[in-house]
C-alpha cells in the first residue's frame, strides 16, 4: 500500500468517526432544544394560570368583599360634595399663568397634579361644625 493511500484511509476513518460524533451531538442538542421548548410551553401555561388568578383576585366583587371585611365602605351621600368643572377652571388658570411674561420664572405645576379626578370627592365632616374639615374654601 502506498503512503498516500494509507493517509487517505486514515482520513476516511477520522471523517466517519466525526460524522457519527456530529450526528450524536446533533441529536443531543435537538433533545435539549425540545426540552427547552417544553419548558417554554410550561412557563407560558404558568403565565396564563397567573393571569387568570390575578383576574380573579382583582375582580370587583372580591375587592368589595375584602373591603367590607376591613370595615371600609363608600362615603355616605351627605359626606360627598360634587366639585363641578374644577379641571376646566384649573386648565384656564394654568394657561393664563403660562401666557404671562413671568411664566418661565414661576414654574407652573402640571394640571394633573392639581386636579384629582373630580367627579365626586368625599370629605369627612366635623361632627360639631357639620362642615367639611379639609375642603378648600370656594371649592363648591
Amino acid at each position, binding site marked *: 500500500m502506498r503512503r498516500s493511500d494509507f493517509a487517505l484511509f486514515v482520513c476516511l476513518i477520522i471523517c466517519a468517526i466525526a460524522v457519527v460524533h456530529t450526528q450524536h451531538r446533533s441529536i443531543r442538542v*435537538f433533545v435539549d432544544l*425540545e426540552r427547552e421548548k417544553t419548558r417554554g410551553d410550561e412557563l407560558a*401555561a404558568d403565565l396564563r394560570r397567573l393571569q387568570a388568578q390575578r*383576574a380573579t383576585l382583582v*375582580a370587583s366583587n372580591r375587592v368589595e368583599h375584602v373591603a367590607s371585611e376591613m370595615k371600609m365602605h363608600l362615603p355616605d*351621600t351627605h359626606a360627598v360634595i*360634587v366639585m*363641578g*368643572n374644577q379641571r376646566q377652571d384649573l386648565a384656564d388658570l394654568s394657561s393664563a399663568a403660562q401666557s404671562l411674561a413671568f411664566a418661565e420664572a414661576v414654574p407652573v405645576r402640571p394640571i394633573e397634579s392639581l386636579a384629582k379626578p373630580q367627579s365626586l370627592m368625599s370629605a369627612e365632616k366635623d361632627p360639631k361644625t357639620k362642615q367639611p374639615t379639609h375642603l378648600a374654601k370656594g371649592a363648591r
Partner: protein
Amino acid sequence: MNYKGNTALHLRLEGWRASLVLVLLLLAFMVLVIRAVFLQGLHADFLQHKGDERYSRVIEERAYRGEVLDRNKDPLAISLPAVSVWASREDAEMNPVQLQQLSTLLEMPKEDINRRINEGRGNFVYLKRQLSQEVAQKVSDIHIPGLFEQKGFRRSYPKGEMMAHLLGFTDVEDRGQEGVEVTFQSVLAGLNGARRVIKDRPGSVIEDVENIREPRPGHDVVLSVDSRVQYLAWRELHAAITRNKAKAGAVMVLDPRTGEVLALANYPDYNPNAREHVTLTQLRNRAVADTYEPGSTLKPFTIAAALEAHKVTPATIIQTGNGTMNIGPAVVHDTHPGGALTVSQVIQRSSNVGAARIALSLPPEAMWNLFTDVGFGQTPKMGMPGEAGGRVRPYRSWRPIEQATMSYGHGISVSLAQLARSYTIFANEGNVMPLTLLKQDGPVSGRRVISPQTAAAVKDMLELVVKPEGTAPLAQVRGFRVAGKTGTAHKLDHGHYSNRYVASFVGFAPASNPRLLIAVMIDEPSTGDYYGGLVAAPVFSGLMAGALQILGIQPDDPASENYASPPSGNSAAEET
C-alpha cells in the same frame, strides 16, 4: 521455473462452461435487480410505512383558544392547560387502595370508575376530562397500569357569575356553546398543528422529519364591556331582586355615542366555572332572548312621532279629563286624573289617556314607521345567540284601541336590548345606533330616525320624569342631569293580563351630553311595590352614579342638591 513446459497445466476447458457461469451470474444479478425493483418501487410505500411505524411518530401540537378581554384588556375568559384521564379497558388494573385513591382524586364514586372500565364497548374510555395539571400529576403518581393522560384545555372565567350570560361557555371539546364564546367561535378557535418526528426508545423526540401543519392559536377578542361597570350592574340588579323578591331581572348599559354594550347582566345567573347543576332558567339570557310588553317606556316614541308629524309641540295641552277614555267598548285608564296636561306632562306623569289621545291624532303608519325604524320587531343583531326580535303587528291591521294601547307599550313586545337601543335616538340627536359587543376605536355612524330638534325636545321631557313631580325621582343621580322613563306593565297569563308586573326604567346621563344609557327590567316584584319608578329606578340610579364615577365623567349639574325624598306611592304610580 518454466511453466509453459509443463503439460499438466495445458488443460483445455470447454467453452460453454464459462458461458454457463456468466449466464448464472447474470441471472443472479437479474434476480437481485427484480427484487430491488419490487422492494424499492412496487412495495416502497408499504415498507416505508412499516419502517416509519417503528420509529417515526406524528405528534399533535395543540393551539390555545383566544382570550376574551374587556375594553381595558382585563381577561374575562382564558384557556388553561388541562388533562383528561382515559383508561384502556383491556389493560387497566388496579388494587382496592389505588381505586380508593383514584376515586378521591377524580371526585368520582368507586362504582362509577368500575362501571366505566368494565362496561361499554371498545377499549378506550374517558374517566374524567379537564382535570387541572396538579390533580393529573397526582393521578399519574399512583402508577395504575392501563391509565393514560391526554392533554387539552380548560376554559376559566375569572369573573364568575357576573359575566356568565355575556361570555357563555365552551364544551369539553373547546367549542363555544353560549354567549360570546359561540358568537366569536371562528375567531377564538385555535387550529391544532401536527409534525412528524422520530422518537428514540425512551420516547424523546430526536429529530424533526416534517412539519405537517403549523399550530395556529385563536385570536383574542376585545369586548366593548367594562368589567367594573358590569360588576356594578350585576350588584345593583341582585340587590333589587332581593329587595323586591322578584322572579327575574336584566340590566343593560350602552354607550349611546357608539352603540357599544358596556354591561349586560341577568338574574338568575350561574357560575360558568361550575356548571354541573345549572338549569335552563339560569342559562337564559333574558336581556336579549326574552320579550315583554314594555309599557310606558314606549310613550316617548309616540310623542316623538307626533312631534315629527307636527301634530303637537311640548306645550300643547292635552285633555285627559277624569283619567278615563272610551274607545269603543274599551276604556283607557290613568291612575290619577290629570285634567289638562301639556305634552311634556303626559310624559312626566306617564298619562295613558294623554298618550292615547296623541296616538289617535296620528296615522297608524307614522307610529309603525318609527317603531320599525328604531328596531322593534327586528333582532338587534348585536351578535348574541338567541336574540329575539319581538313583535310589532303591521299597521294595516291596527284597530283604534290597538293603536291607543300600543302608544303606551301594550300589544307590542320588545326585548330589553331592543328597548335600550331604541333610546339611543333621544341620547344621540335622533340617531339609532347599531349595537356591538366589540370595542370600537373610531366614531360610529348611526342612522337618523328623528330630527335632532325632536330628540332634544323629548330629552327635555324625559328630564322632567326624574323631577319630584315625575314618576321616577329615585332615578336621580347626584351632580348629573338625568333623563329617563319608567314603565310598568301587567304580564300576560294565558292571553289575559294578570296581577303580575314587569317594572322597567330606561334612561341616560349626563343629559347635557349623554355618555351612558341604562335599561333595567325587573320581572314580577312581589313585595308590594311594582312601579318602575320604585323598583327599577333605584337600580338605574345606583348603577349610573357608580358607572359615571368609574368612567370619570364630568358632572353637568354639580349644584343640584338632589336627592329628592323618595316619592310617595302616588307620585311614582303610573297606569299599567
